[in-house]
């Protein structure tokens, strides 16, 4: 029996907030009536911008991405005279989503929010997002976006979520260790080739410790594993029909269990990235967003990072992740139109290129790759261009993981049993499937109405 995810204050807040959202939606019947909700509080608007329409953007970016978004807001404010954008950092994607929940309850909302690929569905299912189709025009064309990424924000033929900070899993490898093991300087074409290479890694040591081939992420490892399930020809779900207990997913789980307990070439880690940076593992499948940190750590450790497409088994395919813009429907019309101007600004090729260069996220505007600085970076740094090329094989995540609350937690706690307890995948996934089916049935009616 899979233990229910440990209740934490964030989980409970999210759960109670979710219920509150449903009540809010019911209570706000009448669509476009009224003047919309008040605006979330912030700092005093600078005097030179006092006459402009104020737009509040809540985002989940700290560090370099946070700096980059603040810079884009600053440039936007300086580039025109009608709108003032205030970008406010609200914590992680989950924390930001919880704050939006509370803000909707209080009827004092931001105008634009960055949601993760999972979180925006909760707001969509509660009728809180604005459809964006009518806003495209001469300023920003729909066709400007990478269509695969854009289509992930489409439900019921309408666009609700625009890509901004997108990433995919990618295959990282330690070129230096590969060289020592006599392996070629490239990614493996398939997992079977990778397995053959893994045997050649045996015997290699770094600082007296046996190098392993791979590590699995303890928390949120279900994101990468979804890619594994697809590569093996399966899925977490087909539509809302749970499929994780079917053979391809089970085979993917058994593959990893064998690597850990029989071949002793892999293990579960709190932070596989740090282990990779310490050369404890020779390869790793994790987010493209981590490339900068891998490169920096490798430079300091005096070894070299390589990247490649994630290998294939039956199929070669990877999921996407990351964040994008959603607009709140209950913002007044003038604020929504003003918010769209900032979206347009971020969608200019030069600004999209700036964002990609500063953060490492994928270029979501096709023309961005032709901007001089980004073009040069892609040419000079093959690692940086791997993720862009891999966009050809990305796929939208399975519906159950995206729309069923806590589905990701149920799956990764199940994976932990495989990776640490040596529990057979068939048994674990049968339990997880049962849990997922129950969770899905609770929200099935609302999802089917909205999808």
């Amino acid at each position, binding site marked *: 029996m899979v233990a229910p995810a440990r209740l934490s204050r964030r989980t409970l807040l999210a759960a109670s907030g979710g219920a509150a959202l449903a009540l809010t939606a019911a209570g706000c019947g009448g669509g476009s009536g009224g003047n919309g909700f008040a605006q979330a509080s912030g*700092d005093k608007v600078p005097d030179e911008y006092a006459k402009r329409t104020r737009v509040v953007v809540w985002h989940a970016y700290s560090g*370099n991405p946070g700096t980059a978004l603040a810079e884009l807001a600053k440039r936007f404010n300086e580039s025109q005279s009608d709108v003032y954008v205030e970008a*406010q950092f609200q914590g992680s994607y989950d924390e930001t989503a919880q704050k939006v929940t509370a803000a909707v309850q209080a*009827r004092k909302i931001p105008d634009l929010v960055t949601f993760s690929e999972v979180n925006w569905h909760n707001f969509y299912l509660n009728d809180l997002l604005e459809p964006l189709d009518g806003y495209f025009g001469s300023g920003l064309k729909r066709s400007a976006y990478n269509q695969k990424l854009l289509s992930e924000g489409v439900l019921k033929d309408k666009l609700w979520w625009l890509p901004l900070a997108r990433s995919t899993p990618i295959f990282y490898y330690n070129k230096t260790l590969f060289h020592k093991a006599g392996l070629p300087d490239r990614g493996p074409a398939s997992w079977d080739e990778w397995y053959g290479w893994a045997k050649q890694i045996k015997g290699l040591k770094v600082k007296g*410790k046996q190098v392993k081939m791979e590590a699995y992420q303890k928390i949120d490892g279900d994101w990468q594993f979804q890619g594994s399930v697809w590569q093996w020809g399966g899925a977490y779900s087909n539509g809302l029909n749970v499929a994780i207990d079917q053979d391809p997913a089970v085979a993917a789980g058994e593959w990893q269990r064998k690597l850990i307990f029989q071949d002793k070439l892999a293990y579960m880690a709190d932070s596989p990235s740090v282990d990779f940076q310490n050369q*404890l593992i020779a390869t790793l499948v994790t987010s493209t*967003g981590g490339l900068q940190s891998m490169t920096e*750590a490798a430079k300091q450790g005096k070894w070299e990072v390589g990247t490649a497409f994630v290998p294939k088994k039956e199929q070669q395919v990877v999921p996407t992740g990351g964040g994008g813009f959603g607009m709140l429907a209950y913002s007044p019309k003038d604020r929504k139109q003003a918010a769209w101007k900032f979206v347009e600004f971020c969608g200019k090729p030069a600004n999209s290129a700036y964002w990609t260069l500063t953060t490492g996220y994928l270029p979501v505007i096709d023309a961005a790759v032709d901007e001089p600085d980004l073009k040069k970076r892609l040419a000079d740094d093959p690692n940086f261009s791997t993720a862009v090329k891999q966009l050809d094989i990305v796929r939208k995540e399975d519906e159950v993981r995206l729309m069923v609350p806590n589905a990701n937690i149920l799956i990764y706690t199940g994976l932990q049993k495989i990776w640490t307890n040596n529990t057979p995948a068939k048994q674990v996934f049968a339990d997880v499937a049962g849990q997922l089916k129950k969770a899905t049935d609770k929200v099935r009616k609302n999802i089917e109405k909205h999808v």
Partner: protein
Amino acid sequence: MTTSTVDSPARRPSRGGRVVRYVLLVVLACVVLGPIYWLVTSALKPTADIYTYPPTWLPNPLHLRWANFADAWHAAPFGRFFLNSLIVTAIGTAGEMLCATLCAYAFAFLRFPFKKVLFGILLGAMMVPGHVTLLPNYLTISDLGWINTYQGLIFPGLGSVFATFLLRQHMLTLPGEVLDAAKVDGAGHLRTMFRVVLPLSRPMLITAGVITLVAKWNDFIWPLIVTNSTNMRTVPIGLLFLKTQEGYNNWGAIMAATVLVIVPVLVVFFFAQRQIVAGLTQGATKG
């Protein structure tokens, strides 16, 4: 006067037993101080040294990286964060202690109907998890227009069951003779409270005050929920600005910022520790 029994040599605690106790204390101290040691030494290491395996326990004296502190200070507006935390903690602690003191005095010394029932309700409130009241508090503060303000940060924390209970229990232990003497001299409640009860409660007041202060300084969830803009953030949330979800984390700067956050609390504890020990001891023996 009871005649004391002469200790026979066999009943003196053995030297071996004392050694064992010291060893256990040293082990416990290592367990408690280990993470703090790692924090402080990491704050002085280049990031590459923090990541390395096997761990480097001693920072290289020739390469202490004090720049981590400057990096941290400039990566986000920490001066502003510290000011906000100082304001919220100082006013919040003073306000909470005022409410707790008045409430404790009432429960200890006043007679009024349903006193026991009300005290039971007060204790019951202690059982309610903080996050259950998070959303109602947010809605209330929002209706008052206090989101992203100092008053929004401070007011929900003013009612404290813990400090009230602690002080009330202590006040019940005060000698009745002293209070009776004050009453005979014609002292009313205000004078009794300020001239008799509070001076006698000084260690416990300081203990409760420090506990309250530390809780407010470290508070994370409520400041995260109730503030929106960077200018109103407190230091625990400020640490979030240094850590990214996917990219490169400058752990040296993160550790340095964390050291900056805990130093004020350690300083306060250092100056108040004699009173705290006295307060806890007193409470323990007379409770």
